[in-house]
């Protein structure tokens, strides 16, 4: 599944200062759907190069990291259980850096 992932608010520093990543992510073997829960695991092991604790806490993003799917707050569309679709745009923004 083709997705565009965007990191902001300082999170880009965890993935070699690249803000926008164009990626292909496959659902877990034996499943036909990709959820945000799966995507976070994929991001943590494939894109985050340092300080993963700034991005994840438990099986979700660290509190204070905002997530938007196609410019919509993920809290409105199911958070971890959101099913992703082809060409979705997912944005992660940290609120934890500076002010």
């Amino acid at each position: 599944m083709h997705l565009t992932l965007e990191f902001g608010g300082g999170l880009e520093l965890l993935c070699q200062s690249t803000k926008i990543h164009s990626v292909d992510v496959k659902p877990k073997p034996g499943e036909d759907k990709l959820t945000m829960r799966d995507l976070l695991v994929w991001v943590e092991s494939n894109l985050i190069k340092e300080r993963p604790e700034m991005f994840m806490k438990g099986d979700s993003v660290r509190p204070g990291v905002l997530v938007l799917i196609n410019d919509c707050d993920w809290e409105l569309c199911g958070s971890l259980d959101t099913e992703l679709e082809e060409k979705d745009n997912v944005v992660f923004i940290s609120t934890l850096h500076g002010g």
Partner: protein
Amino acid sequence: MEEGGATARPRRATGRLCSTCNQRKAALKRPKTLEQICRECFYSVFEDEIHNVIMDNNLFKPGERVAVAASGGKDSTVLAYVMSELNRRHNYGLDLFLLSVDEGITGYRDDSLETVKRNEIEYGLPLKVVSYKDLYGWTMDEIVKTIGLKNNCTFCGVFRRQALDRGAALLKADKLVTGHNADDIAETVLLNILRGDIARLSRCTFITTGEDGPIPRCKPFKYTYEKEIVMYAYFKKLDYFSTECIYSPNAYRGFAREFIKDLERMRPRAILDIIRSGENFRTATSTKMPEQGTCERCGYISSQKLCKACLLLEGLNRGLPKLGIGRARGTNGLNKRVEQRNLRSERTGSNIESKQCGTLDF
């Protein structure tokens, strides 16, 4: 987590509609109210709430010169934008400008100052920069070289507070506004409880402080959630700087911040409730409060002979960088308080207050 709605694909339920206008697709869930609202309604309610806070608390008078403390970060960028917008829209009649402090942190502040300079042009607000080097003779880089990474945030915080006041005075400002948001204030309430700092605990929730001093400062974002500030900046594509301070990983605040964020996830109202708790604390009349005077050396408000900045500076210049770190020290006419404190500690068997804040661990 979220109730999925009736349709099979919760997200693609052709968008839940905005609970305010009932026309457009909702774009975010407000932490304050849990309402789902669209971008346009969010902009209005976000700006209107800040306008109402400004009006209800009489933060400004027409004709005042107001310095917006600008770091280039998210809060102050949104503050500069919203203040300039509201000033125009509601005819506040304020003469606004940006005030930045250059701490002298290579790779951090020099970059963020570039952001402020772009804001200067975009929002049409003049910019004034004051530096630690000019004011104190030391850059933060030099301070860290001398004292290491312990307590460096104490130096930076104390120096910045005074630098903003001095900068504001230099600009002949009547008031200073800062971008402290609801999350920051809740965090400060907790920190002051953790440190047993009763004087600050009662002050930290005031929307305006220093009204008896030369430059009152106020916090129009006192009730504004950080999440909404960041969402606003994102949707409006405001240009802000978000590299963390290279010296901050040791900051004690980080622990309190994380705790607040955990609470927020479970119950977003927790942030407003902590602020409310802070507002309603009443200090027992038997509690001795430090008396407010002025610093013998620089004239800045201080409850001691020397203000904190002058004390820290003296430590640096005399090669005694621990001078002025922690509050319970006998170096600055504090003996009486230390004795009281020790008495109290003996009673409770805990001496947590006299520890340096940077060395406290959970």
